[in-house]
């Protein structure tokens, strides 16, 4: 049985702030933006949160392949910015997209990889014939403390993937995860902003886990970087995914279509799922995509995906990633602060 991606949808809020504008406020030089290789990031509207973004992405996924939402047997919503500490995002999404009540649901949290963890859970249920379709979502309105390095990249966006075994547009040939207890980034209960271990987030966290999962999957699949047409890695900034790709032997050409962080920032749980969507937006049947997420704390999920003929039927059914990137409305720092609820009255 072939299981995999039946449809996908993304949503990126239309507001943007340029990193130069953030640097202007904090008195940082252009070396910050040059170093991060990110130019602007997405900002949610005043009334947008992880739930509204997840709903938009899920609607786009349903619309793209004209799927009856009643077929959905599981909704898993991955985020590190669920609006409720207790009360699931997944149930609100289900109600909003008009599923039946006959589905299981839960919220996932694993820093930036909760979305791919949700995808793996759906794949498991589909592959074992427990459900017809699973909806896996990664969505975030990520937080960065004013003046912290995270503020330059913490963005908003969501991606939803319908996982099934009929009419598959992207076969998931294999998946492999690499996980360890690594405290590189965290947010404790009640804290408004996360903390991070500075340079510790690099080598022992991102690079170790992404490379660990990627190499593990390549070995399991008995494949090599050159067997893939495209590769997508988690994108906390514009530098890390490029470096890890080079480390693993993937070319710039392979990662280019999915490298969207310079224009929208780090959308956390949605980051590599939006990158994958941008790649599916242009991939041709028969082509292969290698995807590896990363979540602090820490772990990575790697996927080997083969694009199927069905992709051509569904591609144009919903807005592409580039459609969303194209509609940008720029905010100054004051409006951005208002949008992000940084101003307390």
């Amino acid at each position, binding site marked *: 049985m072939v299981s995999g991606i039946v449809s996908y949808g993304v949503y990126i809020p239309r507001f943007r702030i340029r990193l130069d504008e953030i640097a202007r406020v904090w008195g940082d*030089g252009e*070396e910050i933006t040059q170093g991060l290789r990110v130019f602007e990031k997405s900002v949610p509207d005043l009334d947008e949160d992880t739930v509204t973004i997840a709903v938009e992405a899920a609607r786009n996924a349903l619309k793209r392949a004209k799927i009856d939402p009643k077929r959905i047997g599981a909704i898993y919503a991955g985020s590190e910015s669920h609006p409720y500490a207790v009360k699931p995002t997944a149930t609100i999404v289900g109600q909003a997209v008009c599923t039946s009540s006959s589905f299981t649901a839960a919220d996932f949290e694993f820093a930036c990889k909760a979305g791919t963890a949700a995808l793996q859970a759906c794949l498991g249920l589909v592959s074992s014939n427990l459900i017809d379709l699973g909806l896996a979502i990664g969505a975030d309105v990520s937080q960065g403390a004013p003046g912290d390095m995270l503020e330059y990249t913490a963005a908003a966006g969501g991606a939803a993937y319908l996982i099934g075994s009929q009419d598959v547009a992207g076969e998931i040939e294999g998946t492999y995860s690499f996980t360890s207890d690594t405290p590189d980034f965290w947010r404790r209960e009640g804290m408004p902003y996360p903390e991070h*271990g*500075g340079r*510790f987030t690099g080598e022992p966290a991102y690079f170790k886990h992404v490379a660990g999962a990627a190499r593990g999957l390549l070995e399991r699949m008995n494949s090599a970087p050159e067997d893939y047409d495209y590769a997508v890695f988690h994108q906390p900034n514009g530098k890390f995914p490029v470096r890890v790709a080079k480390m693993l032997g993937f070319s710039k050409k392979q990662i280019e279509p999915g490298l969207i962080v310079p224009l929208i920032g780090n959308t956390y749980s949605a980051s590599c799922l939006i990158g994958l969507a941008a790649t599916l937006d242009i991939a041709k049947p028969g082509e292969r995509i290698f995807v590896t997420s990363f979540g602090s704390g820490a772990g990575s999920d790697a996927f080997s995906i083969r694009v199927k003929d069905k992709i051509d039927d569904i591609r144009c059914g919903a807005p592409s990633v580039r459609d969303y990137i194209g509609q940008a409305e720029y905010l100054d720092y004051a409006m951005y602060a208002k949008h992000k609820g940084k101003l307390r009255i």
Partner: protein
Amino acid sequence: MRSVSIIGVGCTKFGERWDVSLRDMIAEAGVMAIEDAEITGEQIDALYVGNMSGGRFIEQEHIGALIADCAGLSRLHVPSTRVEAACASGGLALRQAVLAVASGYSDIVIAAGVEKMTDVSTGTAADALAAAADREWECFFGATFPALYAMIAKLHMRRYGTTNEQMAQVAVKNHHHACMNPIAQYHMEITIDDVLKSPMVADPLHILDCSPISDGAAALVLAPTEMAKRFSEEPIKIVGSAQASDTLALHDRRDLTTLDATVHAGRAAFAQAGIEPRAVDVAEVHDCFTIAEILAIEDLGFVEKGQGGKATEEGMTALGSSLPINTSGGLKACGHPVGATGIKQAYEIVLQLRGKAGKRQVDEAEVGLAHNVGGSGGTALVHIFTR
């Protein structure tokens, strides 16, 4: 007083050692030194360890007992003492060990240094380091170490015409040396342009003018010279060991562009050794910032006051020239785990005098010097070594 020699040395790789703890590093360096000296634990009479701020960096004090324990010496009840003089803690540990052996009180003594700095955020580390300055009269008013050395640099530039490029050359040279040192934190060549274009920390000091935050440990085994040949075929004699103090706060100094503690410790060490500065073949000096190396070579008498920048620019301090400075890469490029630095300096000089410094070997090195500074110059130690 007895003559003292080094009979064994060990040093860990310096850098962001996220995979190891302070305990792991001190054990690694200690075992290397003990194996190098071919001694057993039962022969060790005392340990001295330099550590600046275990309390702030890893929330662990009582480092003396800890390292004796890690070394497996706690059951032998060997006395172990942690000494602290900020970034000169390592140099001071060496001096305490020298005094213990020279006095005849102890025979085989370990001098070690260790710091684990990367377990805390950069801000916490910077604040722990700021504790080496005058907290009430400097730090409370916003001064940090880069700011204090920036003030020194500004005045040095105005008074002596020292340039940004000359300071940058210190970093360029030390990175070049570090590329030849397997234990160094950075194995990358840099250019003057790289330094000048790197982010500004405190005008005129760019980030590449500053030594990094590092983890590392180093250890030496000392013995009376008369016994040294029994353990080592190539013992290195410590012919000068001197320490001097100065005002804690920079603003109380006689002269902002001279570290008087270095001047006094240097003179005393040279007098003990009975040699002139020009007799030194290789030196490790305290380049916590590039301007600090320029001050050091002036204050130790290697060049005239005000000529340090020019001498560096002309290449006098590079490997292959008349006085190679910081062949290890210095604090700048070998790394600066503060408590370990003073011991690593002696480790490098021992390798040079043994002729075992590999690609960075100074030809026919007979006399070496190590210079370690605490804070902005409140403490300085100078040790002189011969074959």
